[in-house]
């Protein structure tokens, strides 16, 4: 495969190299194929894209700013650092870009009921938001553990009219919420659309979610051209399922001079059994509709992930990342809970931005590597979410009572 065609994936069967595909029960297959057919129809449809852009601009608040983080740049003493401010989107993260695209598709398909899974609650809030906007009932599956640690988002979803269904099986977090959402879907296949929150799941979801998020990278290209008259040298993002990273990277995948680093959650450390680094510590397998890298036991059972960040606490990764990992197009690194916590505080104090714990992982690695890039280089990091939702977790970790 020529190096300059990364953007052409997946193939017609939904494969990025050997990853992706459609591994679902037969009950869901006809619907998955229908979603694919309908998505292919609207993907390049002018009216759909106009409508999508309209809502992104007037409701989500796009384009999000590209901000020169001058104090952090000076402090780290290397490349010029820009933050893509997707945390300024309505609902506080990149998640809503994708939700907006998917709900417009759901409406086109005549679906009358929306379900979603959520980990950190950002995707749940974004889904609840677009459901309120378009007047559709919304059911959000959320792990018991995540409901505890993300209580502000749980309350927000309720205010937005969503029904939260607590998932108490397995690890009681994102993986199990996704299992329950799939069980709901198979039971209500006729009227229900499943808005998956990350670039994973059966084809066409990984490609569709990536496409809806790719507005991030497209804006960066344009904004940086205006600000600096050139392309970035390095793009950085955190990855749980990997949609914010793909949203930033996809536009630049075929620009061979643009380097990319994605940061997995190392939890207590990659060498412990408490992390969420599926690429660094996992093996290829099949879960939630796609073939991809997964954290697995010696007998092929899916293992529980761990991260301080609920949004990264998932034992898998979108299939396109598995492909880019094996192709070595993107470099995958990791940051521990502790490093993310430090980066979180660093960002608050130096830039007046309270980041979500998810992008704090990317920042933790950025802090380490920025000085390896000379001052004439440009790094763009996706600030994919804001940290309001995390203040209780942070206070807890810092032993502060609020």
């Amino acid at each position, binding site marked *: 495969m020529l190096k300059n065609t990364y953007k052409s994936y997946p193939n017609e069967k939904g494969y990025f190299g050997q990853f992706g*595909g459609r591994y679902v*029960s*037969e009950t869901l297959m006809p619907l998955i194929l229908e979603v694919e057919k309908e998505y292919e129809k609207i993907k390049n449809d002018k009216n759909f894209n106009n409508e999508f852009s309209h809502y992104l601009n007037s409701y989500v608040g796009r384009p999000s700013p590209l901000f020169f983080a001058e104090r952090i740049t000076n402090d780290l003493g290397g490349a010029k650092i820009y933050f893509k401010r997707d945390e300024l989107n309505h609902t506080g993260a990149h998640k809503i870009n994708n939700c907006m695209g998917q709900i417009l598709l759901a409406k086109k398909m005549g679906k009358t009921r929306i379900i979603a899974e959520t980990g950190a609650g950002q995707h749940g809030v974004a889904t609840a938001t677009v459901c309120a906007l378009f007047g559709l009932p919304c059911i959000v599956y959320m792990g018991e553990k995540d409901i505890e640690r993300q209580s502000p988002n749980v309350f927000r979803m309720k205010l937005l009219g969503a029904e939260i269904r607590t998932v108490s099986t397995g690890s009681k977090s994102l993986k199990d919420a996704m*299992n329950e959402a799939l069980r709901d879907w*198979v039971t209500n296949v006729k009227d229900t659309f499943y808005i998956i929150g990350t670039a994973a799941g059966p084809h066409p979801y990984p490609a569709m979610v990536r496409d809806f998020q790719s507005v991030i990278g497209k804006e960066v290209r344009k904004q940086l051209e205006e600000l600096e008259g050139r392309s970035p040298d390095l793009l950085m993002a955190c990855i749980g399922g990997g949609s914010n990273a793909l949203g930033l990277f996809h536009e630049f995948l075929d620009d061979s001079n643009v380097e990319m680093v994605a940061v997995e959650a190392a939890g207590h450390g990659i060498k412990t059994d408490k992390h969420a680094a599926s690429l660094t510590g996992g093996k290829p*397998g099949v879960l939630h509709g796609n073939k991809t890298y997964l954290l697995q036991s010696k007998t*092929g059972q899916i293992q529980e992930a761990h991260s301080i960040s609920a949004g990264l606490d998932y034992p898998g990764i979108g299939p396109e990342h598995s492909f880019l990992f094996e192709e070595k197009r993107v470099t995958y690194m990791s940051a521990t809970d502790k490093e993310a916590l430090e980066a979180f505080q660093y960002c608050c104090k130096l830039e007046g931005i309270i980041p979500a714990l998810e992008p704090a992982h990317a920042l933790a690695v950025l802090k380490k590597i920025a000085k390896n890039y000379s001052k004439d280089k440009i790094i763009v990091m996706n600030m994919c979410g804001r940290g309001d939702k995390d203040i209780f977790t942070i206070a807890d970790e810092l032993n502060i009572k609020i």
Partner: protein
Amino acid sequence: MTNLISQAFKDNKKKLVTFVTGGDPDFETSLQIIKTIINNGVDIIEIGMPFSDPMADGPTIQLSSNRAINKGIDLENIFSLASEAKKTKKDVPIILMGYYNLILYFGIEKFVKKCKENGVDGLIIVDLQPEEDEDLINELKKNEIDLIRLITPTTDEERLKLILKNASGFLYYVSVMGITGQKSANLNELKKSVAFIKKHTNLPVVPGFGIKNSTDVNNICKIADGAVVGSSIIKIIEENLNNKDKILSEINKFSKDLKDGTKV
């Protein structure tokens, strides 16, 4: 041992198919359960390969899988159960049922070889449809093991044809939209679906999902070639975890009842 599944349907009598998770509540008891069911005249045995994320299953089988995994049950144990089950009555077909990841992790070729060695006659893989099954089906064909196809209420004529292409043994009809152990099928709908499938194939059609007792089995057997019962057997295990003798005596009674239900 080839074609044991199609042999089983030769006499045109209605078939009882049962599902239990292998290794639940522990290896030894699970083996006793399987032997009990076989001795009570079950026609086909399905042994579940416990998986951490059984997406098509309701709470009963989820908990059952967890119990087995917590006992350390792995595929080697499942193969031992299959081989012991085969020794009990050599003409009762053994089917392993589960999710694709375990097979992929174990290695497809090695997995199928082990199936052959341990008397497995068929496989049911819930999350593997014709679009993705090429690697597995080629290996299964070489070893004359059936891949039992799942057909559901959402399967249309075009997909049915695709599914039938490599179908053998029998067809498992998922009689409701949903997960295992929940609602029951509407018999009129089921009748129509079975007729629709039979228009396209001579393979036996056996419904599963939501079939809870002997009466259900009887109703289904009037419409189709047999019935699959799973969750309600496993429910007996769940309700008597502290009393293994009771598990066995209750399942002994229940499986006899179920078998009686096949008489139409």
